[in-house]
């Protein structure tokens, strides 16, 4: 199974670098998006800290807050784009059927497609981290290992969500809007760019119902010392439950939708 996933990832990586300008832009893009946020925050700061922001989060380091949010948001996008959009690209390129006719489990196809996406995101985040440390003075004092332990079940849950998503892409044969809207909504309502406590009551209900919110919150609490919504241990339990439920639901829905597409004969259409 691992060899299959690596073969898929290797193919995706070769294809990624067949468009070199796109590859370079992927590296520059996050710094480009973060720079205005840095200067905007600076405009609201007094002596390097933002008091209003600190009242909500317990930390005046708005830039590190946004930076960590953008990292976790990037992983959400990596899973969504990795599973959903790449499936659509294969449909458009006419190669989905030739892949689907091989004796490879569908699970390997879906997960394998995200490997390249995750590797590129990790490299990207490392580069942005380095640039942020050099240019904007980013620093984090907490345990990176504990933050990763929180992030992993969140990613597991997102994979489950991604499986359902892949099924929807097969069904409606459209990905761009679906991926854009979903990763934007999940990212923003989880507090990618702001503390969710600033949201109005109607939105904060949705935000608190998203397990990803607790991942963002716990990672920031661990690394930046912000005030968490839940203690990190409780957040980890929520995220593990989220992972188990979403993986099961996601896989069941994907297999059901794929069966429906095979009955309808729409697999090769785009």
């Amino acid at each position, binding site marked *: 199974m691992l*060899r*299959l996933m690596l*073969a898929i990832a*290797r*193919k995706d990586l*070769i*294809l990624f670098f*067949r468009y070199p300008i796109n590859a370079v832009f992927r590296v520059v893009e996050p710094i480009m998006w973060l720079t205005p946020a840095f200067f905007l925050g600076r405009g609201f700061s007094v002596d390097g800290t933002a008091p209003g922001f600190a009242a909500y989060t317990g930390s005046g380091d708005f830039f590190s807050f946004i930076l960590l949010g953008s990292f976790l948001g990037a992983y959400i996008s990596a899973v969504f784009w990795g599973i959903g959009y790449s499936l659509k690209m294969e449909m458009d*390129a*006419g*190669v989905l*059927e*030739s*892949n*689907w*006719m*091989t*004796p*490879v*489990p569908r699970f390997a196809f879906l997960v394998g497609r995200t490997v390249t996406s995750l590797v590129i995101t990790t490299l990207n985040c490392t580069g942005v981290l380095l640039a942020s440390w050099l240019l904007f003075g980013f620093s984090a004092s907490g345990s990176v290992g504990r933050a990763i332990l929180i992030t992993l079940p969140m990613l597991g849950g997102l994979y489950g969500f991604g499986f359902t998503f892949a099924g929807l892409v097969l069904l409606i044969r459209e990905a761009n809007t679906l991926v854009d809207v979903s990763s934007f909504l999940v990212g923003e309502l989880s507090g990618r760019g702001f503390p969710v406590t600033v949201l109005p009551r109607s939105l904060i209900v949705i935000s608190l119902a998203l397990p990803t919110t607790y991942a963002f919150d716990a990672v920031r609490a661990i690394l930046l010392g912000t005030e968490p919504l839940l203690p990190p241990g409780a957040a980890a339990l929520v995220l593990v439950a989220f992972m188990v439920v979403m993986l099961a639901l996601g896989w069941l829905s994907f297999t059901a939708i794929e*069966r429906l597409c*095979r*009955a*309808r*004969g729409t*697999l*090769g259409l785009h």
Partner: protein
Amino acid sequence: MPASVEIESLRKVFQRRAKRGLLSRRGNGTRTLVAVDGISFSVTAGEVFGLLGPNGAGKTTTIKMLCTLLTPTSGTARVAGHDVVKEATKVRAALGTVMTGERSVYWKLTGRENLAYFAALYRIPSRQARPRIAELLERMELTARANELVEKYSSGMKQRLALARALLAAPPILLLDEPTVGLDPQAARALRELIGSLRHEGRTVLLTTHYMAEADALCDRVAIIDRGRIIALDSPASLKQSLKAKEAIRMEVQGSPNGLEDALRALTTVESVSAKQSDNGSGTCELQVITLGSRGCIGPMIEAVRRTGHEVLHFQVVQPTLEDVFISLTGKSLRE
């Protein structure tokens, strides 16, 4: 000989929802399309078997059900002894499939990269994959261009690469869906020779085509399929033999085919007629007539054509082909 492919009462029905306009509620209903209507046949090991029929006859639908891309509505299909629904993974492992069209490989990868990728999907260890890929590239005459992006290949090269992909895991059974469609005559001939060579390796080949000459040249047996049903199944020679008591006549006639078919069908010695406008731009039409074998019908036929205001330019009595068998059975041409 054991059967490599066994199909029993296989049927595929599609429910198609009628398109609706953005604001219109008209056409709110479903349409039922019977693509494959209870077909049964078996292909023995080592046989080259052809499904011959016009576009929309149900050939591709049958292939898609065999290669597990499509679920049958009813009936059973077994490939290498495995049920296509219950043992889909085993079926996929036993098959090499080339679907119609040239977009079954990655255009942004080289030919070699494509084969390396698919070899990994078939779980061929890297040490075995390298010589296998080299051998297939050589056989498909692609070695010199193996490291070029597929987007720079001609249609024939892309189709040969797709065949190499299907052969990677040395599958005992090959499904080829319209393998030569869209190729120039030279590339089509080269691909037919390659398919012919597979017979000598003892592989079972099930191919679909609407080119009668292709089916005639390549297949041990042919099933003629029309509107989802098999209307004849035998060796090409036997199928043509069934027309022995009849004669096939080709005519080229000045003008459009209007009224010609009815005029000829009115003759008692004429069994079936197919007429179509010539595609050579000369303003003539071509008629294919199956008669009941009496040469006494030639005069009345020419007379019948003249009565419709047409002039016979060319008249020829020929050996029946598979196309004549199809016309005899359905009363229409394969290309209609």
